[in-house]
């Protein structure tokens, strides 16, 4: 029987891996991810989860062990955060290059220095070029749902790529809210066991990780390009099937919240989206034609879907909970890239909530009102840092 439980985002990730029948879990603890592996270790120790739990000496080894397990035909899961993810960098590319559908949870935490354990998307977005599919979650239910869906997407023989399910530090990882923990049989029907065509097998020896000479390497990359091109359709397809089986719509590539025929479109990722929906409702009641697009899938970037979404829109206000050194936030840049040469509304990039800085409904409303005002006055500033100590007065009012 499915059951509603009050659980943290970390426990939701652990239950997601259990329901997905992950067979090998290798992880190294780091705040704020620690509870994910603690819970999995407990489930395994108590015999509730049939998996091999491997204690490793670093995140680099955690991903290496996950890769080996996946290569041997096991469903592998791991979890990390910030500096742990950065240490995995080399192996993130190995997992995608070797076409291994390892699924992991990354708890979005700011990179130091200065040291911070709080929410920020920079850690994940700095890994956007590693071949991982990236799914941003709005609440704890979606964390659990996304782990299950990720295996289904990643293990599809046309895809065969790894994925990261990401959730905001503390705002989701340590916040407890009601989450439906599905009946195992329901999940088993939705997600068949993992059975790859090629795996490490002593009876049928094969070579893995071999040399790619210049006359072949490029074609391997092209095959990943082809797979990535197929992901958006697969994400929507699996989302639809999930909806039919579990009665819940996680949102596919982009969740559209009251976007029909809007003049102003706000784009968010992760937990900010949830608070923002309350603000969107408030502004719509005040007569503003505004809606919200929640970017759920960041890799691959849902280019086509975005082009559709901005048709007729005057202003796109992008809330970037990241600053990836060099220009502005990553989401705004990707969006501009996606719409270049198509309909081109004003795009303003708001840098918000870095290192866990709180985003109250009031600050979010100030941002959205600023975006609305751009319709008359035009773009005043390409990149706006919101609620800094130096400009606090303007944004908090």
């Amino acid at each position, binding site marked *: 029987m499915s059951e509603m439980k009050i659980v943290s985002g970390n426990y939701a990730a652990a239950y997601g891996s259990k329901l997905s029948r992950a067979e090998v879990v290798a992880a190294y603890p780091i705040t704020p991810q620690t509870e994910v592996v603690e819970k999995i270790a407990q489930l395994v120790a108590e015999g509730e989860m049939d998996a091999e739990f491997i204690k490793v000496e670093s995140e680099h080894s955690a991903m290496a062990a996950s890769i080996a397990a996946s290569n041997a035909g096991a469903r592998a899961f791991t979890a990390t955060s910030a500096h742990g993810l950065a240490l995995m960098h080399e192996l993130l590319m190995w997992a995608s290059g070797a076409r291994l559908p390892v699924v992991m949870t990354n708890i979005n935490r700011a990179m130091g220095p200065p040291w911070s354990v709080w929410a920020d998307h920079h850690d994940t977005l700095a890994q956007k070029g590693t071949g991982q599919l990236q799914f941003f979650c709005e609440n704890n239910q979606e964390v659990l749902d996304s782990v299950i869906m990720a295996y289904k997407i990643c293990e599809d023989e046309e895809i065969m790529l790894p994925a990261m399910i990401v959730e905001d530090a503390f*705002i989701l990882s340590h*916040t*407890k809210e009601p989450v439906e923990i599905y009946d195992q049989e329901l999940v088993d029907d939705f997600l068949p066991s993992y059975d790859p065509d090629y795996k490490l097998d002593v009876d049928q020896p094969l070579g893995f990780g071999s040399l790619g000479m210049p006359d072949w390497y490029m074609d391997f990359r092209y095959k990943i390009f082809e797979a990535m091109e197929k992901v958006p359709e697969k994400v929507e397809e699996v989302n639809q099937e999930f909806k039919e089986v579990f009665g819940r719509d996680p949102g596919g590539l982009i969740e559209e919240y009251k976007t029909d025929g809007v003049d102003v479109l706000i784009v968010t990722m992760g937990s900010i989206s949830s608070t923002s929906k309350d603000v969107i409702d408030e502004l719509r009641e005040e007569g503003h034609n505004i809606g919200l697009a929640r970017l759920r899938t960041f890799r691959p970037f849902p280019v086509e879907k975005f082009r559709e979404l901005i048709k007729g829109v005057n202003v796109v206000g992008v809330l970037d909970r990241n600053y990836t050194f060099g220009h502005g936030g990553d989401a705004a840049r990707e969006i501009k890239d996606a719409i270049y040469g198509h309909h081109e509304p004003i795009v303003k990039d708001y840098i918000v909530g870095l290192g866990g800085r709180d985003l109250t409904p009031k600050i979010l409303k100030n941002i959205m009102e600023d975006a609305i005002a751009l319709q008359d006055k035009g773009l005043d500033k390409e990149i706006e840092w919101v609620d800094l100590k130096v400009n606090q007065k303007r944004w908090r009012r």
Partner: protein
Amino acid sequence: MIEIRFHGRGGQGSVIASELLARAAFAEEKDVQSFPMYGVERRGAPVTAFTRIDENVVRDKSKIHTPDIVIVLDMALLDSVDVTEGLKPDGKIILNTGKPPEEVDLGVDNPKYTVDASEIAVKHGLGSKVAPIVNTAILGAVVKATGIVDIETLVDVIKEHAPAKKEENAKAAEEAYEKVRGEKDE
């Protein structure tokens, strides 16, 4: 929406209290959210925890800045923490002290309720005299003072989810429910 803020010290059970209250409200079919204000916590340091309760889906994921209810598990915190910060004008304050409410001066006019949760906790074997675990006792007082949930619901939730000494914790909540005093009760 009802927003609640707990002030305690590491080891007193503030985070568990915020969670038990959320569970009780959820058992009464409300939507809930419970979360700690995370620093990098250790025993004895000031801890803040929060609970949100609503008839509708709770979507706000920001911190709680204007609580409806403030709960103080340790009176010594009053020297270092502004416990009434942002408290709504009609918001209630529940304090762990043996003093009657009118003898506690917080510099605000909000209704105050007091209960000697430390004494009740020690009596029921929860923690030691030096470091009593007062979270379940204070919750009994909160339920009486605010009526957020029924005491029966709270007691059931404590019996199911208290990390240890379930019966003792439930009794502490029941006793505090009976003993809490409001300013106009005298």
